[in-house]
C-alpha cells in the first residue's frame, strides 16, 4: 500500500511531460527561426529605428500603466474593504466588472465616445481601465486574509491608521501587488485589438501588421523574439522583486473581520475616486455599446453570423475549458502529490509558455503545422492546442488548490475499505476537486471567449467567433454592427467575473491566475 502511494505513476508523468513538451514549441520556434534567419539578417531586423520606436512605446506603456494600475487597484481595494463607505459592496462588485469587458471592446467603447483618442496616453487610459482589477482583486483577497490582530498591534505600538497601512498592510500586500502587476505587464505586451484601435503601436500590433503583410515572415519572427525577451524580462523581474518572502499568516488567528476606518471629511474624495473609476471603466464602455445597440435597433441583431458566432464561441470555450482542465490535471496532481524537481519543472514550463503573447504561440503553431503536421493545419484541434497552452495555468492553479484541500486520509480510507485505487480516487478525490475544476474551467472559458489575436491567425476556414466578427465589423468602421457581438462577449463573461469576485471574498486563493 505504502509503496503504491509513493511510486510516481508513470502514466501521469508521461501525460504531464507531453503537455509540457508541447509548451516548449513556441519558445523553440522563436529560437529556431532566429537561428535560421541568421545573425546578419536578424540584427538588420532587430537593430533598426522602428524596433527602437516600438520598444520605447511598449516600455513606456508598461512603465506607466503598471504602477498606475497598482496604485488604483490597491486604493480601491482598501476603500472597499477597510473603510465604512456606504455602498461599499456595490462598488466591490462594480470594480470587478471591467474584467468582463475585453480590452478591445473597452477600446471600442472609448473610441466611440472620444474618436480622437490615440497614442501612448490613450493606451495607458484604456489599458489601465481594463486591467486595474487584476491588482484590485488579489489585493481584496489578501486584505481579507490578513490577520487583523497584526494591524491592531501596530496601532497599540503608536501608529496612526495611515501609518499602519503604510508600514504593516502594504508590505504584506507585496505578493498580490507584484503578482497582479506581472499579469498586467504580460497583458500589455500581448494585447493587440485595444491598441490597434487607438493607433498606438506596440510590438504586438507591429507583429500583426507584419503578419498581415508577409504572413509569418522573418520580420514578424524577429519582432516576436524581442517580444518574448520582454516577457521573460518581466517574469524574471517579478520573481526577483518577490524574493524569498513568504508572508504566511502566523498562527491560527480568529475569523474576526478587520476593522474599518471612518473616512470622515475624506468621504467625498473617496466617493469621487470610486465614482470616477467606475464611470470610466464600466459606464463608458457600457454606454457606448448601449448607444450603438440602440441606433442599430433590432436590425443589428439579424446579422446572419450572430448565432453561428455565438455557437462557435461557446463551443470553442467549452471544449477548450474541458480539454485544458483534463490536461492540467496530471500536472496539478504531480505538484500536490509528488512535489519535487520534476513536478516543478513541468509546471513552470507551462507558466512561462502561457506568459508569452498568444500571438507568438499562434505564429509558432501555424508554422509548425504547415511544415511538420499538415493534417493539423487549420483545424479546430490546433486552435484548442493553442488555447490550452495559453490558459493552462488558470486550470493548474485552481486544481492544485483543490487537490491540496482533499483530506489525505480520505482516499486511503476508501482503499482500506476495499476500493480499487482508481475507484477510490474518482469517488473521493474527484468529488472534492470538482469545484476547483469548475472554477479553473470557467477562467479558461473566459479567456477563450475574449481571445482575438491568435484565433485570427489559427481559425479554420469559415470560423467566426464573436471576437473575430466583432473585429471584422470594427475594421469596417461598422460600430453599429459590432455592438451585438460586443454585448454577447460581455454577457458570456459576466458570470465568470462574478465567480472571480466571489472567490476573492472567500478564503480560496487562485484569483491571481488570469
Amino acid at each position, binding site marked *: 500500500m505504502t509503496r503504491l502511494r509513493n511510486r510516481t505513476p508513470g502514466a501521469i508523468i508521461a501525460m504531464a511531460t507531453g503537455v509540457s513538451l508541447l509548451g516548449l514549441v513556441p519558445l523553440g520556434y522563436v529560437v529556431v527561426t532566429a537561428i535560421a534567419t541568421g545573425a546578419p539578417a536578424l540584427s538588420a531586423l532587430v537593430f533598426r529605428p522602428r524596433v527602437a520606436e516600438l520598444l520605447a512605446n511598449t516600455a513606456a506603456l508598461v512603465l506607466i500603466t503598471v504602477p498606475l494600475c497598482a496604485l488604483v487597484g490597491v486604493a480601491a481595494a482598501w476603500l472597499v474593504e477597510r473603510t465604512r463607505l456606504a455602498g461599499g459592496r456595490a462598488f466591490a462588485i462594480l470594480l470587478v466588472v471591467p474584467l468582463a469587458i475585453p480590452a478591445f471592446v473597452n477600446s471600442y467603447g472609448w473610441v466611440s465616445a472620444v474618436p480622437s483618442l490615440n497614442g501612448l496616453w490613450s493606451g495607458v487610459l484604456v489599458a489601465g481601465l481594463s486591467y486595474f482589477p487584476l491588482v484590485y482583486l488579489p489585493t481584496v483577497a489578501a486584505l481579507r486574509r490578513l*490577520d487583523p*490582530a*497584526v494591524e*491592531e*498591534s*501596530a*496601532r*497599540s*505600538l*503608536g*501608529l*496612526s*491608521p495611515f*501609518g499602519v497601512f503604510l*508600514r*504593516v498592510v502594504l*508590505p*504584506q500586500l*507585496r505578493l498580490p501587488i507584484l503578482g497582479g502587476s506581472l499579469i498586467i505587464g504580460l497583458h500589455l505586451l500581448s494585447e493587440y485589438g485595444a491598441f490597434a484601435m487607438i493607433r498606438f503601436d506596440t510590438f504586438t500590433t507591429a507583429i500583426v501588421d507584419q503578419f498581415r503583410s508577409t504572413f509569418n515572415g522573418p520580420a514578424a519572427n524577429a519582432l516576436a523574439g524581442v517580444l518574448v525577451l520582454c516577457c521573460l524580462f518581466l517574469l524574471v523581474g517579478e520573481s526577483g522583486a518577490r524574493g524569498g*518572502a*513568504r*508572508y*504566511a*499568516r*502566523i*498562527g*491560527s*488567528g*480568529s475569523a474576526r473581520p478587520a*476593522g474599518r476606518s471612518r473616512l470622515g471629511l475624506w468621504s467625498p474624495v473617496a466617493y469621487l475616486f470610486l465614482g470616477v473609476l467606475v464611470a470610466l471603466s464600466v459606464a463608458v464602455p457600457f454606454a457606448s455599446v448601449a448607444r450603438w445597440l440602440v441606433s442599430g435597433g433590432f436590425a443589428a441583431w439579424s446579422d446572419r453570423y450572430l448565432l453561428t458566432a455565438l455557437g462557435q464561441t461557446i463551443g470553442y470555450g467549452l471544449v477548450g475549458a474541458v480539454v485544458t482542465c483534463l490536461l492540467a490535471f496530471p500536472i496539478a496532481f504531480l505538484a500536490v502529490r509528488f512535489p519535487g524537481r520534476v513536478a516543478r519543472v513541468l509546471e513552470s514550463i507551462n507558466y512561462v509558455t502561457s506568459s508569452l503573447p498568444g500571438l507568438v504561440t499562434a505564429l509558432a503553431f501555424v508554422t509548425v503545422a504547415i511544415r511538420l503536421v499538415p493534417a493539423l493545419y487549420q483545424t479546430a484541434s490546433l486552435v484548442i492546442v493553442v488555447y490550452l497552452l495559453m490558459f493552462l495555468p488558470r486550470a493548474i492553479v485552481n486544481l492544485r488548490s483543490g487537490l491540496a484541500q482533499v483530506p489525505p486520509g480520505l482516499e486511503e480510507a476508501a482503499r482500506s475499505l476495499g476500493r480499487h485505487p482508481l475507484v477510490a480516487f474518482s469517488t473521493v478525490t474527484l468529488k472534492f476537486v470538482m469545484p476547483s475544476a469548475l472554477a479553473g474551467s470557467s477562467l479558461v472559458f473566459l479567456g477563450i471567449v475574449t481571445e482575438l489575436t491568435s484565433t485570427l491567425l489559427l481559425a479554420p476556414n469559415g470560423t467566426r467567433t464573436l471576437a473575430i466578427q466583432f473585429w471584422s465589423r470594427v475594421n469596417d468602421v461598422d460600430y453599429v454592427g459590432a455592438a451585438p457581438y460586443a454585448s454577447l462577449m460581455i454577457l458570456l463573461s459576466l458570470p465568470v467575473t462574478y465567480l472571480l469576485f466571489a472567490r476573492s471574498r472567500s478564503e480560496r486563493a487562485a484569483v491571481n491566475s488570469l
Partner: protein
Amino acid sequence: MNEIEPRTIEPRTIVMTGVGKRYGGTSVLESIDLSVPTGSKTVIVGSSGSGKTTLLRLLSGFDFPDAGTIRIGADIVAGPGVAIPAHRRGVGHVAQDGALFPHLTVGQNVAFGLDRHERGDRSAIVAELLDLVSLDPALTSRRPDELSGGQQQRVALARAMARKPGVMLLDEPFSSLDTGLRASTRELVSAALTAAGITTVLVTHDRAEALTFGDQVAVLRDGRLAQVGTPTALYCSPTDLATARFLGDVVLLEANASAGQVRCPLGVVARCTSLNGGCTALFRPEQLVIDLLVPGVDAGGIVARIAAAEFQGSSQLLTLEIAGTSGLELPVASGIHYRVGDEVTIRTIGDAIVFPAN
C-alpha cells in the same frame, strides 16, 4: 486631545466605571466597574462569549464603550465625548497569537514601536528587551514563522514593552501554546512584567492561569463581573456556585441548615445563620481526605463504601456510598489501589461553602 507618550515606564491605574458595550442589539458588556491598581496584575477570566476580549479591546482602544468611562492614569480615555484611539493611549497589547509582523524580522518587530530618536542605539535596546523576556539575541534576524509559539509570544511582549507603556494588556497570550510550554512561558512573562512594574491586565479562560498569574482576579460571566478579588478569596470563598465551579473542581453534597448549623451526610460541615432548610454544601476535593477502613481502628470521620472506581492516570475517581445513599464522586490521588466494595473513612478539612439549594 491628550497625547500620552510615556518615556520611562510609569505604571498607571485603570479604572472602569459603569462600562457597557452593545453589538447590534446584543449587550456584550454591562455596567462593568473595575479598578486595577498601579503596578498590579489583574486577570479577567471567563468562558468564551463572556465578553472578556471585548473588555480588553475597550481598554486597548480598538473599540469604544457605549456607556461609562474608562480612566487610565490621570486621563479619561473613553467616555461621553471622549474616544482616544489605540495609537494615542500608550497602552501595550499582546494578542492571542502574538500578531508579529510577518514581513519583518524579530529585531525589526521589537524595534517597530521605537521612536525615531531611539533608532540610533536600537540594536542595544532590542537586545535588552529580548533579554528581558529571556530570548537569545541570536534570534534577532529570524523571521517570526521560524520561531516556536512560546518564543513568538515573548517577542510580542518585548515589542510591546519597547514603547514603555504604563499599562500592558494580554489577550489570552498563552492559550495557543502546549501545556508544558504554557506554564514556563507564563512564568517568564510574569517575571518580566513584575520586574518592569507595569500595570497588567490578562484575559484568559484558563482557571490555572487566572489563579496563578494575577494579584487580582475578575470573573466575567455573560457580560457582567460576577466577582472580583484575590485568587485565594475567589477560590476559597466564591460568592456563587458558578464561580466556584469555574475556578476549580467541586464536590457537592445536599445539606440542611437549621439553628445556624449546616448538616450533610458528612456531618456538620459549616455554620450559617442566613440560611434555613435545604441547601448545598461545597467542598474542594482536596478538603476531603479518605483512608481505608482498618477493622477495629476508629480513625474518625464518616464511613463510606466504594461503589465504583475509575482509574484516570494520576488520579482516580471514586464513587462513594454513605449510609446506603450513593452519589458522592471524589477524585483522589492514584497512589493507593482502591477496590469496589472497600470501606473507607472520609475526613473533612475546613468548612464547606454553603449555597442555597436551587
